Protein backbone atom coordinates (compact mmCIF):
# COMPACT_ATOMS: atom_id res chain seq x y z
CA UNK A 1 0.00 0.00 0.00
CA UNK A 2 1.40 3.37 -0.90
CA UNK A 3 0.49 6.73 0.53
CA UNK A 4 0.29 9.48 -2.03
CA UNK A 5 1.63 12.91 -1.14
CA UNK A 6 -0.80 15.81 -1.49
CA UNK A 7 -0.40 17.34 -4.94
CA UNK A 8 0.79 20.62 -3.51
CA UNK A 9 3.77 18.87 -1.89
CA UNK A 10 4.89 16.94 -4.97
CA UNK A 11 7.91 18.74 -6.44
CA UNK A 12 7.42 19.55 -10.07
CA UNK A 13 10.30 19.35 -12.47
CA UNK A 14 11.47 22.58 -14.07
CA UNK A 15 9.99 24.83 -11.37
CA UNK A 16 10.31 28.29 -12.85
CA UNK A 17 11.36 31.12 -10.55
CA UNK A 18 8.02 32.78 -11.26
CA UNK A 19 6.07 29.79 -9.97
CA UNK A 20 8.48 29.63 -7.04
CA UNK A 21 7.63 33.21 -6.15
CA UNK A 22 3.96 32.35 -6.41
CA UNK A 23 4.43 29.31 -4.15
CA UNK A 24 6.23 31.41 -1.50
CA UNK A 25 3.49 34.06 -1.61
CA UNK A 26 0.78 31.40 -1.32
CA UNK A 27 2.51 29.80 1.66
CA UNK A 28 2.87 33.19 3.40
CA UNK A 29 -0.81 33.88 2.77
CA UNK A 30 -1.74 30.55 4.36
CA UNK A 31 0.44 31.30 7.36
CA UNK A 32 -1.20 34.70 7.74
CA UNK A 33 -4.62 33.05 7.66
CA UNK A 34 -3.62 30.54 10.32
CA UNK A 35 -2.24 33.26 12.60
CA UNK A 36 -5.71 34.32 13.71
CA UNK A 37 -4.73 36.04 16.98
CA UNK A 38 -2.53 38.39 14.97
CA UNK A 39 -5.35 39.18 12.54
CA UNK A 40 -7.84 39.71 15.36
CA UNK A 41 -5.39 42.00 17.16
CA UNK A 42 -4.99 44.04 13.95
CA UNK A 43 -8.76 44.34 13.57
CA UNK A 44 -9.15 45.42 17.21
CA UNK A 45 -6.38 47.99 16.81
CA UNK A 46 -7.97 49.25 13.59
CA UNK A 47 -11.40 49.43 15.25
CA UNK A 48 -10.07 51.36 18.22
CA UNK A 49 -8.32 53.89 15.99
CA UNK A 50 -11.56 54.44 14.11
CA UNK A 51 -13.45 54.73 17.38
CA UNK A 52 -11.03 57.35 18.74
CA UNK A 53 -11.17 59.37 15.56
CA UNK A 54 -14.93 59.10 15.17
CA UNK A 55 -15.15 60.64 18.66
CA UNK A 56 -12.58 63.30 17.80
CA UNK A 57 -14.24 64.29 14.54
CA UNK A 58 -17.64 64.16 16.20
CA UNK A 59 -16.49 66.68 18.81
CA UNK A 60 -14.60 68.93 16.40
CA UNK A 61 -17.05 68.92 13.52
CA UNK A 62 -20.01 69.16 15.86
CA UNK A 63 -18.89 72.72 16.42
CA UNK A 64 -17.50 73.51 13.02
CA UNK A 65 -18.20 71.93 9.66
CA UNK A 66 -15.49 71.74 7.09
CA UNK A 67 -16.29 72.64 3.52
CA UNK A 68 -15.42 69.30 1.99
CA UNK A 69 -17.45 66.96 4.12
CA UNK A 70 -18.82 65.96 7.47
CA UNK A 71 -17.63 63.84 10.39
CA UNK A 72 -18.75 60.56 8.76
CA UNK A 73 -16.68 61.18 5.63
CA UNK A 74 -13.64 61.92 7.76
CA UNK A 75 -14.06 58.58 9.53
CA UNK A 76 -14.29 56.88 6.13
CA UNK A 77 -11.16 58.78 5.10
CA UNK A 78 -9.35 57.41 8.14
CA UNK A 79 -10.68 53.91 7.46
CA UNK A 80 -9.00 54.01 4.04
CA UNK A 81 -5.70 55.54 5.17
CA UNK A 82 -5.35 53.17 8.13
CA UNK A 83 -6.31 50.22 5.92
CA UNK A 84 -3.22 50.91 3.81
CA UNK A 85 -0.88 51.53 6.75
CA UNK A 86 -1.97 48.66 9.02
CA UNK A 87 -1.95 46.13 6.18
CA UNK A 88 1.81 46.42 5.65
CA UNK A 89 3.90 44.26 7.99
CA UNK A 90 7.22 45.56 9.27
CA UNK A 91 9.28 43.56 6.81
CA UNK A 92 12.41 45.59 7.57
CA UNK A 93 12.58 43.90 10.98
CA UNK A 94 12.63 40.43 9.37
CA UNK A 95 15.45 41.43 7.00
CA UNK A 96 17.38 43.11 9.82
CA UNK A 97 17.06 40.00 11.96
CA UNK A 98 18.30 37.73 9.15
CA UNK A 99 21.21 40.03 8.39
CA UNK A 100 22.12 39.99 12.07
CA UNK A 101 21.84 36.26 12.77
CA UNK A 102 23.29 35.14 9.44
CA UNK A 103 20.02 33.66 8.18
CA UNK A 104 20.50 35.58 4.96
CA UNK A 105 23.45 33.30 4.06
CA UNK A 106 21.16 30.26 4.02
CA UNK A 107 18.60 32.09 1.93
CA UNK A 108 21.23 33.14 -0.60
CA UNK A 109 21.87 29.49 -1.41
CA UNK A 110 18.30 29.06 -2.62
CA UNK A 111 17.40 29.23 -6.32
CA UNK A 112 15.55 32.49 -5.85
CA UNK A 113 16.87 35.96 -5.20
CA UNK A 114 16.67 37.04 -1.59
CA UNK A 115 14.72 40.15 -2.53
CA UNK A 116 12.17 38.15 -4.54
CA UNK A 117 11.68 35.67 -1.71
CA UNK A 118 11.19 38.44 0.90
CA UNK A 119 8.90 40.38 -1.42
CA UNK A 120 6.82 37.27 -2.23
CA UNK A 121 6.45 36.42 1.46
CA UNK A 122 5.39 39.95 2.28
CA UNK A 123 2.95 40.18 -0.61
CA UNK A 124 1.30 36.88 0.41
CA UNK A 125 0.92 38.13 3.97
CA UNK A 126 -0.32 41.53 2.81
CA UNK A 127 -2.92 40.02 0.48
CA UNK A 128 -4.64 38.38 3.44
CA UNK A 129 -4.39 41.49 5.58
CA UNK A 130 -5.77 43.71 2.85
CA UNK A 131 -8.78 41.45 2.36
CA UNK A 132 -9.50 40.93 6.07
CA UNK A 133 -8.85 44.51 7.18
CA UNK A 134 -10.65 45.92 4.16
CA UNK A 135 -13.80 43.99 5.02
CA UNK A 136 -13.44 44.84 8.70
CA UNK A 137 -12.91 48.51 7.84
CA UNK A 138 -16.16 48.73 5.87
CA UNK A 139 -18.09 47.11 8.75
CA UNK A 140 -16.40 49.18 11.48
CA UNK A 141 -16.63 52.53 9.71
CA UNK A 142 -20.24 51.78 8.75
CA UNK A 143 -21.08 50.88 12.35
CA UNK A 144 -19.35 53.94 13.83
CA UNK A 145 -20.76 56.47 11.40
CA UNK A 146 -24.13 54.79 10.86
CA UNK A 147 -23.94 55.61 7.17
CA UNK A 148 -22.02 54.67 4.02
CA UNK A 149 -19.53 57.16 2.58
CA UNK A 150 -21.09 59.94 0.55
CA UNK A 151 -19.85 58.13 -2.56
CA UNK A 152 -19.67 54.33 -2.62
CA UNK A 153 -18.01 54.74 -6.01
CA UNK A 154 -15.07 56.31 -4.17
CA UNK A 155 -14.57 53.12 -2.15
CA UNK A 156 -14.34 51.11 -5.36
CA UNK A 157 -11.79 53.53 -6.78
CA UNK A 158 -9.80 53.30 -3.55
CA UNK A 159 -9.28 49.53 -4.01
CA UNK A 160 -6.71 49.59 -6.86
CA UNK A 161 -5.09 52.68 -5.38
CA UNK A 162 -4.76 50.95 -2.01
CA UNK A 163 -3.12 47.92 -3.64
CA UNK A 164 -0.58 50.08 -5.47
CA UNK A 165 0.09 52.13 -2.34
CA UNK A 166 0.79 48.98 -0.35
CA UNK A 167 3.18 47.74 -3.04
CA UNK A 168 5.06 51.05 -2.89
CA UNK A 169 5.22 50.85 0.90
CA UNK A 170 6.62 47.32 0.71
CA UNK A 171 9.33 48.56 -1.68
CA UNK A 172 10.23 51.29 0.80
CA UNK A 173 10.37 48.87 3.73
CA UNK A 174 12.55 46.43 1.79
CA UNK A 175 15.00 49.24 1.03
CA UNK A 176 15.06 50.26 4.72
CA UNK A 177 15.53 46.62 5.78
CA UNK A 178 18.66 46.23 3.63
CA UNK A 179 20.09 49.43 5.08
CA UNK A 180 20.54 47.40 8.28
CA UNK A 181 23.59 45.86 6.62
CA UNK A 182 25.42 49.17 7.06
CA UNK A 183 23.49 50.64 10.00
CA UNK A 184 23.07 47.42 12.06
CA UNK A 185 19.74 48.77 13.30
CA UNK A 186 17.50 50.30 10.65
CA UNK A 187 14.59 50.99 13.02
CA UNK A 188 15.50 54.67 13.60
CA UNK A 189 15.33 55.26 9.83
CA UNK A 190 12.01 53.46 9.73
CA UNK A 191 10.58 55.58 12.57
CA UNK A 192 11.41 58.81 10.78
CA UNK A 193 10.08 57.60 7.45
CA UNK A 194 6.96 56.27 9.17
CA UNK A 195 6.31 59.56 10.91
CA UNK A 196 6.99 61.35 7.63
CA UNK A 197 4.32 59.16 6.16
CA UNK A 198 1.90 59.97 8.98
CA UNK A 199 2.49 63.72 8.83
CA UNK A 200 3.22 64.39 5.15
CA UNK A 201 0.87 61.64 4.00
CA UNK A 202 -2.09 62.99 5.92
CA UNK A 203 -2.80 59.83 7.88
CA UNK A 204 -4.93 61.49 10.55
CA UNK A 205 -5.87 64.72 8.82
CA UNK A 206 -6.61 65.18 5.13
CA UNK A 207 -4.04 67.41 3.44
CA UNK A 208 -6.83 69.92 2.68
CA UNK A 209 -6.55 71.01 6.32
CA UNK A 210 -2.76 71.61 6.03
CA UNK A 211 -1.16 75.01 5.42
CA UNK A 212 -0.32 75.58 1.77
CA UNK A 213 3.48 75.39 2.19
CA UNK A 214 3.30 72.04 3.96
CA UNK A 215 0.96 70.71 1.32
CA UNK A 216 3.43 71.68 -1.37
CA UNK A 217 6.22 69.80 0.43
CA UNK A 218 3.93 66.83 0.88
CA UNK A 219 3.10 66.73 -2.83
CA UNK A 220 6.77 66.17 -3.63
CA UNK A 221 6.91 63.03 -1.49
CA UNK A 222 5.47 59.57 -2.16
CA UNK A 223 3.59 59.75 1.14
CA UNK A 224 0.79 61.96 -0.11
CA UNK A 225 0.07 59.54 -2.96
CA UNK A 226 0.19 56.48 -0.69
CA UNK A 227 -1.99 57.85 2.09
CA UNK A 228 -3.92 60.97 1.11
CA UNK A 229 -4.31 59.77 -2.47
CA UNK A 230 -6.19 56.69 -1.27
CA UNK A 231 -8.11 58.36 1.58
CA UNK A 232 -9.23 61.19 -0.65
CA UNK A 233 -11.51 58.76 -2.46
CA UNK A 234 -13.80 58.95 0.59
CA UNK A 235 -13.99 62.74 0.40
CA UNK A 236 -14.11 63.88 -3.21
CA UNK A 237 -13.72 60.97 -5.61
CA UNK A 238 -13.37 61.72 -9.28
CA UNK A 239 -11.88 59.98 -12.28
CA UNK A 240 -9.37 62.81 -12.81
CA UNK A 241 -8.07 62.58 -9.24
CA UNK A 242 -8.05 58.78 -9.50
CA UNK A 243 -5.95 58.84 -12.69
CA UNK A 244 -3.43 61.38 -11.40
CA UNK A 245 -3.04 59.43 -8.12
CA UNK A 246 -2.65 56.19 -10.07
CA UNK A 247 0.17 57.69 -12.15
CA UNK A 248 1.95 58.99 -9.06
CA UNK A 249 1.61 55.61 -7.33
CA UNK A 250 3.05 53.75 -10.31
CA UNK A 251 5.92 56.23 -10.60
CA UNK A 252 6.81 56.16 -6.89
CA UNK A 253 6.37 52.38 -6.80
CA UNK A 254 8.91 52.00 -9.61
CA UNK A 255 11.35 54.37 -7.87
CA UNK A 256 11.07 52.62 -4.48
CA UNK A 257 11.32 49.09 -5.90
CA UNK A 258 14.30 50.19 -7.99
CA UNK A 259 15.89 51.60 -4.84
CA UNK A 260 15.16 48.39 -2.91
CA UNK A 261 16.75 46.34 -5.70
CA UNK A 262 19.88 48.51 -5.74
CA UNK A 263 20.34 48.51 -1.94
CA UNK A 264 19.73 44.74 -1.87
CA UNK A 265 22.28 44.18 -4.66
CA UNK A 266 24.94 46.21 -2.90
CA UNK A 267 24.31 44.57 0.49
CA UNK A 268 24.50 41.05 -0.92
CA UNK A 269 27.61 41.89 -2.94
CA UNK A 270 29.27 43.08 0.26
CA UNK A 271 28.19 39.91 2.06
CA UNK A 272 29.64 37.73 -0.73
CA UNK A 273 32.92 39.66 -0.60
CA UNK A 274 33.42 40.00 3.13
CA UNK A 275 31.02 37.44 4.55
CA UNK A 276 29.78 39.73 7.36
Amino acid at each position, binding site marked *: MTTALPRSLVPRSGLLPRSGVWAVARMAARQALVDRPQLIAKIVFYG*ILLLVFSQ*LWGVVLGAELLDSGDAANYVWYLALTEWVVISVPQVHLAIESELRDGGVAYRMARPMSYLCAQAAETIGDVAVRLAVLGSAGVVLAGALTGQPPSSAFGLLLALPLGLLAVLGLIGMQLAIGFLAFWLRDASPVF*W*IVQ*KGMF*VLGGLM*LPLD*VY*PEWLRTISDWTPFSAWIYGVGRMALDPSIDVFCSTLCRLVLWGAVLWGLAWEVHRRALRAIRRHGD
Partner: protein
Amino acid sequence: MREMRRSTFFRKLVATNLRAALALRAAFLLQAGFMLLNNLFFFVTWWIFFERFEEVRGWTLRDMASLYGVVTGAFGTTVIVFGGIRDIAERVANGELDAYLTLPADPLIHLAGSRSIASGWGDLASAPVFLLLLGSSAPGDIPFFLIGMACATVVFASTGVLIHSLAFWLGRIDSVARQIWDLTLLFSLYPRTIFSGALQVVLFTLIPAGFVGHLPVELVRRPSALLLVSVVAAALFYAALAWWIFRIGLRRYASGSRFVARA
Protein backbone atom coordinates in the same frame (compact mmCIF):
# COMPACT_ATOMS: atom_id res chain seq x y z
CA MET B 1 15.91 44.32 54.89
CA ARG B 2 14.38 42.19 52.13
CA GLU B 3 12.98 45.28 50.43
CA MET B 4 16.39 46.93 50.62
CA ARG B 5 18.03 43.91 49.00
CA ARG B 6 15.40 44.02 46.26
CA SER B 7 15.96 47.68 45.50
CA THR B 8 19.76 47.30 45.56
CA PHE B 9 19.53 44.38 43.16
CA PHE B 10 17.20 46.32 40.88
CA ARG B 11 19.43 49.38 40.85
CA LYS B 12 22.45 47.27 39.96
CA LEU B 13 20.49 45.48 37.25
CA VAL B 14 19.41 48.78 35.65
CA ALA B 15 22.95 50.15 35.91
CA THR B 16 24.35 47.05 34.19
CA ASN B 17 21.79 47.35 31.38
CA LEU B 18 22.67 50.99 30.98
CA ARG B 19 26.35 50.25 30.69
CA ALA B 20 25.56 47.56 28.11
CA ALA B 21 23.46 50.01 26.08
CA LEU B 22 26.14 52.71 26.27
CA ALA B 23 28.84 50.29 25.16
CA LEU B 24 27.43 50.58 21.63
CA ARG B 25 27.58 54.36 21.76
CA ALA B 26 26.81 55.11 18.12
CA ALA B 27 23.77 52.80 18.06
CA PHE B 28 22.60 54.25 21.36
CA LEU B 29 22.85 57.85 20.16
CA LEU B 30 21.25 57.00 16.83
CA GLN B 31 18.27 55.31 18.47
CA ALA B 32 17.76 57.93 21.18
CA GLY B 33 18.26 60.87 18.79
CA PHE B 34 15.95 59.51 16.14
CA MET B 35 13.26 58.73 18.71
CA LEU B 36 13.38 62.35 19.92
CA LEU B 37 13.03 63.54 16.32
CA ASN B 38 10.31 60.99 15.73
CA ASN B 39 8.23 62.30 18.63
CA LEU B 40 8.67 65.93 17.63
CA PHE B 41 7.86 65.13 14.02
CA PHE B 42 4.67 63.33 14.99
CA PHE B 43 3.58 66.26 17.12
CA VAL B 44 3.47 68.37 13.95
CA THR B 45 0.15 66.67 13.16
CA TRP B 46 -1.35 68.05 16.36
CA TRP B 47 0.10 71.47 15.63
CA ILE B 48 -1.65 71.42 12.24
CA PHE B 49 -4.84 70.18 13.87
CA PHE B 50 -4.96 72.93 16.50
CA GLU B 51 -3.97 75.59 13.97
CA ARG B 52 -7.19 74.68 12.19
CA PHE B 53 -9.54 73.91 15.09
CA GLU B 54 -7.98 75.85 18.02
CA GLU B 55 -9.48 73.66 20.76
CA VAL B 56 -11.21 70.37 21.44
CA ARG B 57 -13.67 70.87 24.30
CA GLY B 58 -11.26 73.06 26.22
CA TRP B 59 -8.07 71.26 25.19
CA THR B 60 -5.53 73.39 23.37
CA LEU B 61 -2.17 72.70 21.75
CA ARG B 62 -0.44 73.52 25.04
CA ASP B 63 -2.45 70.87 26.84
CA MET B 64 -1.57 68.37 24.14
CA ALA B 65 2.11 69.25 24.55
CA SER B 66 1.82 68.68 28.32
CA LEU B 67 0.07 65.36 27.67
CA TYR B 68 2.84 64.31 25.27
CA GLY B 69 5.41 65.41 27.85
CA VAL B 70 3.95 63.23 30.59
CA VAL B 71 3.27 60.20 28.37
CA THR B 72 6.57 60.16 26.45
CA GLY B 73 8.40 60.63 29.75
CA ALA B 74 6.50 57.76 31.37
CA PHE B 75 6.90 55.50 28.34
CA GLY B 76 10.61 56.29 28.07
CA THR B 77 11.22 55.57 31.75
CA THR B 78 9.27 52.31 31.49
CA VAL B 79 11.26 50.93 28.56
CA ILE B 80 14.58 52.10 30.01
CA VAL B 81 14.01 50.72 33.50
CA PHE B 82 11.47 47.92 32.91
CA GLY B 83 12.27 47.04 29.27
CA GLY B 84 11.99 43.32 30.02
CA ILE B 85 8.22 43.56 30.53
CA ARG B 86 7.74 43.40 26.75
CA ASP B 87 9.19 39.87 26.74
CA ILE B 88 7.29 38.36 29.70
CA ALA B 89 4.52 36.68 27.67
CA GLU B 90 7.02 35.23 25.20
CA ARG B 91 9.22 33.86 27.99
CA VAL B 92 6.26 32.36 29.81
CA ALA B 93 4.98 30.69 26.63
CA ASN B 94 8.46 29.35 25.80
CA GLY B 95 8.98 28.07 29.35
CA GLU B 96 12.03 30.30 29.77
CA LEU B 97 11.45 31.48 33.34
CA ASP B 98 13.47 28.67 34.93
CA ALA B 99 16.64 30.76 34.92
CA TYR B 100 14.84 33.49 36.90
CA LEU B 101 13.14 31.15 39.33
CA THR B 102 16.33 29.44 40.43
CA LEU B 103 18.01 32.70 41.45
CA PRO B 104 17.44 34.37 44.84
CA ALA B 105 16.25 37.63 43.22
CA ASP B 106 12.56 38.32 42.85
CA PRO B 107 11.57 36.91 39.42
CA LEU B 108 9.28 39.81 38.45
CA ILE B 109 11.89 42.45 39.29
CA HIS B 110 14.57 40.42 37.53
CA LEU B 111 12.40 39.90 34.43
CA ALA B 112 11.25 43.51 34.20
CA GLY B 113 14.75 44.86 34.63
CA SER B 114 16.42 42.32 32.36
CA ARG B 115 16.40 44.64 29.37
CA SER B 116 16.78 48.33 28.69
CA ILE B 117 15.66 49.82 25.39
CA ALA B 118 17.96 52.58 24.18
CA SER B 119 15.29 54.45 22.22
CA GLY B 120 13.56 55.11 25.56
CA TRP B 121 16.16 57.83 26.23
CA GLY B 122 14.82 59.67 23.20
CA ASP B 123 11.32 59.47 24.66
CA LEU B 124 12.56 60.65 28.03
CA ALA B 125 14.41 63.55 26.39
CA SER B 126 11.20 64.52 24.57
CA ALA B 127 9.38 65.08 27.86
CA PRO B 128 11.05 68.39 28.86
CA VAL B 129 10.87 69.64 25.26
CA PHE B 130 7.13 69.06 25.16
CA LEU B 131 6.48 70.27 28.66
CA LEU B 132 8.65 73.35 28.99
CA LEU B 133 9.11 74.56 25.41
CA LEU B 134 5.85 73.62 23.72
CA GLY B 135 3.56 73.21 26.71
CA SER B 136 4.74 76.51 28.21
CA SER B 137 4.67 75.09 31.73
CA ALA B 138 6.28 77.14 34.47
CA PRO B 139 9.27 75.81 36.46
CA GLY B 140 6.88 75.60 39.44
CA ASP B 141 4.99 72.84 37.64
CA ILE B 142 8.05 70.59 37.53
CA PRO B 143 7.46 68.80 40.89
CA PHE B 144 3.89 67.95 39.82
CA PHE B 145 5.15 66.84 36.45
CA LEU B 146 7.74 64.57 38.05
CA ILE B 147 5.18 63.04 40.43
CA GLY B 148 2.68 62.60 37.58
CA MET B 149 5.29 61.05 35.32
CA ALA B 150 6.54 58.67 38.03
CA CYS B 151 2.99 57.51 38.79
CA ALA B 152 2.20 57.19 35.07
CA THR B 153 5.35 55.05 34.70
CA VAL B 154 4.19 52.74 37.50
CA VAL B 155 0.68 52.40 36.04
CA PHE B 156 2.01 51.80 32.51
CA ALA B 157 4.56 49.22 33.66
CA SER B 158 1.97 47.50 35.86
CA THR B 159 -0.48 47.33 32.97
CA GLY B 160 2.24 45.68 30.88
CA VAL B 161 2.85 43.08 33.61
CA LEU B 162 -0.91 42.43 33.92
CA ILE B 163 -1.40 41.96 30.18
CA HIS B 164 1.71 39.83 29.69
CA SER B 165 0.85 37.71 32.74
CA LEU B 166 -2.23 36.49 30.90
CA ALA B 167 0.20 34.20 29.05
CA PHE B 168 0.20 32.00 32.20
CA TRP B 169 -3.43 31.17 31.40
CA LEU B 170 -3.73 31.75 27.66
CA GLY B 171 -0.37 30.49 26.35
CA ARG B 172 1.22 32.09 23.30
CA ILE B 173 -0.13 35.61 23.25
CA ASP B 174 3.12 37.56 23.05
CA SER B 175 2.39 39.63 19.94
CA VAL B 176 -1.23 40.23 20.98
CA ALA B 177 -0.07 41.22 24.49
CA ARG B 178 2.33 43.77 23.01
CA GLN B 179 -0.42 45.22 20.86
CA ILE B 180 -2.88 45.47 23.75
CA TRP B 181 -0.22 47.19 25.83
CA ASP B 182 0.34 49.60 22.95
CA LEU B 183 -3.37 50.43 23.09
CA THR B 184 -2.88 51.91 26.55
CA LEU B 185 -0.30 54.20 25.04
CA LEU B 186 -2.51 55.00 22.07
CA PHE B 187 -5.51 56.00 24.17
CA SER B 188 -3.37 58.05 26.54
CA LEU B 189 -2.14 60.27 23.69
CA TYR B 190 -5.54 61.77 22.82
CA PRO B 191 -7.46 64.51 24.66
CA ARG B 192 -9.59 63.06 27.45
CA THR B 193 -12.45 65.32 26.48
CA ILE B 194 -13.18 63.42 23.28
CA PHE B 195 -14.09 60.26 25.19
CA SER B 196 -17.45 59.98 26.86
CA GLY B 197 -19.71 57.54 28.69
CA ALA B 198 -18.64 53.90 28.90
CA LEU B 199 -15.34 54.62 27.17
CA GLN B 200 -14.32 56.91 30.05
CA VAL B 201 -14.96 54.03 32.46
CA VAL B 202 -12.83 51.67 30.33
CA LEU B 203 -10.02 54.23 30.24
CA PHE B 204 -9.87 54.33 34.03
CA THR B 205 -10.18 50.57 34.57
CA LEU B 206 -9.42 47.95 31.90
CA ILE B 207 -7.14 50.10 29.74
CA PRO B 208 -5.89 52.60 32.33
CA ALA B 209 -4.85 55.26 29.82
CA GLY B 210 -6.62 57.76 32.06
CA PHE B 211 -4.03 57.14 34.78
CA VAL B 212 -1.11 57.13 32.32
CA GLY B 213 -1.89 60.39 30.56
CA HIS B 214 -5.11 62.17 31.40
CA LEU B 215 -5.05 62.38 35.20
CA PRO B 216 -1.28 63.11 35.56
CA VAL B 217 -1.59 65.90 33.00
CA GLU B 218 -4.54 67.34 34.94
CA LEU B 219 -2.24 67.37 37.96
CA VAL B 220 0.27 69.44 35.96
CA ARG B 221 -2.43 71.74 34.55
CA ARG B 222 -4.45 72.26 37.74
CA PRO B 223 -2.61 70.88 40.78
CA SER B 224 -4.77 69.90 43.75
CA ALA B 225 -4.49 67.60 46.75
CA LEU B 226 -7.33 65.41 45.49
CA LEU B 227 -5.66 64.89 42.12
CA LEU B 228 -2.34 64.16 43.78
CA VAL B 229 -3.89 61.51 46.03
CA SER B 230 -5.81 59.99 43.09
CA VAL B 231 -2.71 59.72 40.90
CA VAL B 232 -0.59 58.17 43.66
CA ALA B 233 -3.37 55.81 44.79
CA ALA B 234 -3.91 54.59 41.22
CA ALA B 235 -0.19 53.86 40.85
CA LEU B 236 -0.12 51.89 44.11
CA PHE B 237 -3.28 49.98 43.21
CA TYR B 238 -2.09 48.91 39.75
CA ALA B 239 1.36 47.99 41.06
CA ALA B 240 -0.15 45.78 43.77
CA LEU B 241 -2.58 44.21 41.30
CA ALA B 242 0.20 43.45 38.80
CA TRP B 243 2.35 41.93 41.55
CA TRP B 244 -0.52 39.74 42.76
CA ILE B 245 -1.61 38.54 39.30
CA PHE B 246 1.98 37.70 38.34
CA ARG B 247 2.35 35.68 41.58
CA ILE B 248 -0.85 33.73 40.94
CA GLY B 249 0.16 33.14 37.34
CA LEU B 250 3.58 31.91 38.38
CA ARG B 251 1.92 28.99 40.21
CA ARG B 252 0.60 27.81 36.83
CA TYR B 253 3.96 28.12 35.09
CA ALA B 254 5.24 24.98 33.42
CA SER B 255 8.93 24.75 32.63
CA GLY B 256 9.98 24.33 29.01
CA SER B 257 13.04 22.38 30.26
CA ARG B 258 15.19 24.68 28.20
CA PHE B 259 18.75 25.26 29.18
CA VAL B 260 19.15 29.01 29.57
CA ALA B 261 22.10 30.52 31.37
CA ARG B 262 21.85 33.93 33.00
CA ALA B 263 24.60 35.74 34.81
